[in-house]
């Protein structure tokens, strides 16, 4: 079936089978490989992207059902200027192998935007097998602290 997607501000048209997930459409058809395929079962959070501004799991989303704009980790930076959350992940060394990082960042952006009361609880849907959790929380706190001081 023919579908159209808005990916990081760009319109894309493609023809997909109904069972193609947003994750596979992004990675295999549009070469948007920031979202990662970890479990492919909605359990690990590595595929987290924003649809309509809210974090969702691209692996459990059928591409043909997406009607709102999609933002992936590739859509956060402005040119060479990293998004504050991306910069905080660099500053706080909030990763080791990096496989979960794009998903972590997409959830962390929402954590900052929503000013959530409990970062660890909010981020529990993003697993990190390297266990970089303390530094991930520090990265979120860094951005929130900067926001509070403005």
């Amino acid at each position, binding site marked *: *079936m023919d579908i159209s997607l808005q990916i990081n501000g760009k319109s894309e048209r493609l023809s997909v*089978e*109904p*069972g193609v*997930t947003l994750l596979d459409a992004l990675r295999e058809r549009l070469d948007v490989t920031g979202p990662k395929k970890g479990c*492919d*079962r*909605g359990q690990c*959070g590595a595929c*987290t992207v924003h649809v309509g501004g*809210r*974090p*969702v*799991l691209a692996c*459990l*989303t*059928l591409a*043909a*059902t997406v*009607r709102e704009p999609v933002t992936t980790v590739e859509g956060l930076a402005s040119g060479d200027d990293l998004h504050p959350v991306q910069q905080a992940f660099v500053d706080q060394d909030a990763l080791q192998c990096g496989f979960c990082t794009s998903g972590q960042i997409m*959830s962390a952006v*929402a954590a900052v935007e929503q000013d959530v009361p409990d970062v*660890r*609880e*909010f981020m*529990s*849907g*993003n697993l990190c097998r390297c266990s970089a959790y303390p530094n991930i929380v520090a990265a979120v706190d860094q951005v929130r602290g900067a926001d509070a001081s403005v």
Partner: protein
Amino acid sequence: MRPFELTAPETVDAALASPGTFLAGGTTLVDLMKLDVLTPERVLDINTLPLQGIDTTDGLRIGALERMSDVAAHPGTYPVISRALLLSASQQLRNMASIGGNLMQRTRCGYFRDVSVPCNRREPGSGCPALTGANRMHAVLGTSESCVATHASDLAVALVALDARVRLVGSDGERTVALADFYRMPADTPEVETDLRQGELISEVLVPRLDWASRSTYVKVRDRQSYEFALCSAAVALDVQDSRIVDARVAAGGVATVPWRLPSVEQALRGAPPTQETFEAAAALATEGARPLSGNGFKAPLLRRTIIRALREVTEEDRA
């Protein structure tokens, strides 16, 4: 995933007129299609149907396509409902999953989810490996010789405690059913999970007004602190006046094949003072008729303690 046809009906009538499996958030359906547990030939994407809205004018009306995160954040939602939702899944899944879909989610029993083994719920008559197998997570209440799988929804436990009803629309008209009657215990037909008829769709959830449910909570005990299904949970609402419990609502999750209302516990609470002794005596009635399996005997005492903890939580001020 097996090939299927996907359409997006534009009206409720069109959706009801087309045979197929309804898709809302997809967090259950797409997952189980990947596992080959569900193999629909036609899928109907219902996300553009006008089944949204949260109305708190008289009680609570929740459109079936509202997302879990929006209902949890709504100021007019009772605490027991918002807490049950916020203790469910992850924030990504709560942004995706609809209220109707949450109520229709399937059990997390590992045998149900694995098509290489028998399961009476998935393939009637094939057998139940959980009866003698890995059954630590399984039910102790409402079980049968054919199925011991727990119901997975936290929200449904809170809603059953509040006497919620679901509105069902079908091509022959609409009806409302008490959520407690909507779910079927497995008995000898575990494949029949709900009262929903072929072609019917949940259109909204109706929670009767209950002002004293402002004093309510949901306590969930699980193997991990977050992002895990319940080993045991308790939904509690209490009406306390002049140091007496006037009325009570108590339901349990994670321990039963359906969301489990506990009228005997509620009866034992009514008229009594909100004390530890009252709570212990009432909670002792929660596990009457419980049938532990080889691996889940801990769930009976855990249920009693979870109920006591929830009761203590909503009466902290009274006991101070």
